[in-house]
């Protein structure tokens, strides 16, 4: 096939990058948005007001409501308001599949909150493309492997690694695209490698179960019990259900758990009001870098005695959890979130410039190609437009749908998601039908207009002028992104002119 290592790696980088680039762009962009998933969730539920209450007060309200309405439930789950998400939510039964109710944290009265896909949608799309879980995470895993291969092959072909680090030649068409691609790739190389590798590590045992098969005969349960010192098994009651016994006061337990683990995210009460009640205090993810999901404190629900504390992790497990934590970006508060967001957007831009570079490089050559070749090339151009600018339209479109769809619509969250995909599909059709530059311009303009108009939409639909500082921040950020998009539209009008002007000036300079 190819003679030299550089040539074969260039081939792999180009075609592998093209085939997976579209998917990777979507994964990276939604991943960047998912950094602010709870903030977007909050924006998408305007019925919930910002309020500051202590955890003890919020829990008191929640328990009073649950005792009134769901005294016989098998379990109560209370999600506490936080800096990122001022909602107090109670779920009856299983934490993931049970029925949730939002409460006013100040009064404990139930709130009617619209059903929405929320910022959680971006998170779900990021790791499973919003597909059924297993096929979704396998496709995302394959794309992540492609990213790793593209990064390493990219380093191999990029010989003047450090020299070109400082090279940028603006307004030089293809050279500029290449420089932008190289600069964003090299500058953030540690981030690209880290985020891709840690992403793969999260589902490592699903993607590569070899060691599990070899050492545990594929028995994940046994491994799971061995790898973390497991909390005490809940005591089984003699009779079912166990006799009624009042619940221990929660305020002292909250204080004890907060002192030991830091900020709390919620409380789970199993068998509330029975003699075999258990209380689990869940900590906020991100009290430390290592992702500590499920490592919480458990108390006896009657005596308030501590049954199990957060387990000590062995070094190998801690290393694995730190890798998860580095990917989930729950640590370090808002400065760290912004850093991840900016890096994620730049990664997306790096992938996008690579995709554009592919077409810019071949534009002249394909003019002399056969009909089939030209059609394929046109498809690549259209997919570039639809995936890059079309996805931007669909993402901001999801926020618009959240305010435009009727609040009482049945399965509203599902319609928001369908709307998102419908917009995305339409953008592909539009990109196919319109001439290339027009398609870019029109879709980017639409995305910019939707971004810039978002504060207006929220004022009109919510009837309150930016009373909520969290929603205001989100809208300010979206407007800033809108300005960035508008700038890119403006740039699209410029290059031809500037390019020739520059050439003339350059020629004159040489003459002089």
């Amino acid at each position, binding site marked *: *096939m190819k003679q030299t*290592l550089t040539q*074969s*790696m260039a*081939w*792999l980088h180009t075609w592998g990058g093209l085939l997976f680039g579209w998917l990777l762009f979507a994964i990276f962009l939604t991943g960047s948005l998912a950094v602010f998933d709870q903030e977007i969730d909050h924006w998408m539920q305007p019925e919930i007001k910002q309020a500051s209450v202590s955890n003890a007060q919020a829990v008191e309200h929640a328990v009073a409501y649950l005792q009134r309405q769901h005294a016989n439930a098998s379990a109560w789950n209370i999600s506490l308001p936080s800096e990122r998400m001022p909602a107090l939510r109670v779920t009856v039964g299983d934490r993931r599949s049970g029925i949730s109710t939002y409460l006013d944290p100040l009064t404990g009265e139930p709130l009617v909150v619209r059903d929405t896909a929320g910022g959680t949608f971006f998170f779900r799309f990021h790791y499973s493309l919003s597909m059924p879980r297993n096929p979704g995470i396998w496709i995302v895993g394959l794309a992540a*492997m492609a990213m*790793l*291969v593209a990064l*390493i*092959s990219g380093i*191999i072909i990029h010989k003047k690694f450090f020299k070109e680090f400082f090279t940028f030649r603006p307004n030089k068409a293809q050279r500029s695209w290449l420089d932008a691609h190289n600069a964003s790739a090299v500058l953030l190389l540690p981030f690209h490698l880290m985020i891709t*590798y840690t992403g*793969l*590590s999260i589902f*490592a*045992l699903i*993607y*590569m179960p*070899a*060691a*599990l*098969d*070899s*050492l*545990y*005969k594929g028995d994940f349960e046994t*491994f799971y019990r*061995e*790898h973390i010192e497991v909390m005490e098994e809940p005591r089984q009651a003699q009779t079912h259900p166990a006799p009624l016994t009042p619940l221990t006061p929660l305020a002292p337990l909250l204080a004890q758990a907060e002192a030991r683990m830091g900020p709390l995210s919620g409380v789970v009460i199993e068998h509330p009001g029975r003699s075999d009640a258990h209380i689990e205090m869940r900590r906020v993810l991100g009290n430390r870098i290592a992702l500590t999901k499920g490592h919480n404190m458990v108390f006896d629900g009657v005596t308030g005695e501590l049954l199990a504390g957060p387990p000590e992790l*062995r*070094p*190998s*497990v801690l*290393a*694995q959890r730190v*890798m998860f934590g580095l990917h989930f970006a729950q640590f370090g508060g808002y400065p760290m979130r912004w850093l991840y967001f900016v890096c994620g957007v730049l990664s997306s831009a790096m992938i996008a410039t690579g995709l554009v570079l592919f077409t810019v490089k071949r534009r002249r050559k394909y003019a002399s190609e*056969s009909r089939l070749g030209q059609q394929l090339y046109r498809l690549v151009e259209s997919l570039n437009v639809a995936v890059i600018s079309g996805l931007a339209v669909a993402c901001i479109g999801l926020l618009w749908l959240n305010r435009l769809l009727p609040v009482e619509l049945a399965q509203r969250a599902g319609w928001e998601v369908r709307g998102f995909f419908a917009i995305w599909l339409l953008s592909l059709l539009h990109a196919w039908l319109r001439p290339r530059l027009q398609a870019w311009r029109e879709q980017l303009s639409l995305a910019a207009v939707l971004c810039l108009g978002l504060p207006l939409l929220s004022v009109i639909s919510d009837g309150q002028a930016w009373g909520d500082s969290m929603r205001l921040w989100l809208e300010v950020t979206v407007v800033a992104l809108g300005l960035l998009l508008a700038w890119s539209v403006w740039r699209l009008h410029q290059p031809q002119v500037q390019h020739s002007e520059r050439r003339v000036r350059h020629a004159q300079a040489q003459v002089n």
Partner: protein
Amino acid sequence: MSKAGETTQAWPICSRVLAGLLGGYVFTYALTAALAQLLPLDRVDALLIASLLSFIVYTLVILWAFAARSAWCAWVVVPAAAPLALIGFWPHLLERLA
């Protein structure tokens, strides 16, 4: 690159893609299993280390499939996987035979 050149290249390229993706996966699977058995550590630690390293191995094998001098060379990883799989699963094998 002429059109004829592209068609004659199609098969070697398909072969390399398959060698990298599938052959590479088989090799990585076997190597990870072997490493898990051979690491002189607790089985929890051995499992995590071997599993977390597997993606580096897989990446390198895919790169090898495209860097190899001929399309046939790219497939070398598959026979290489056999002895590794034997190491990785010899306890299972002994159990079967006993």
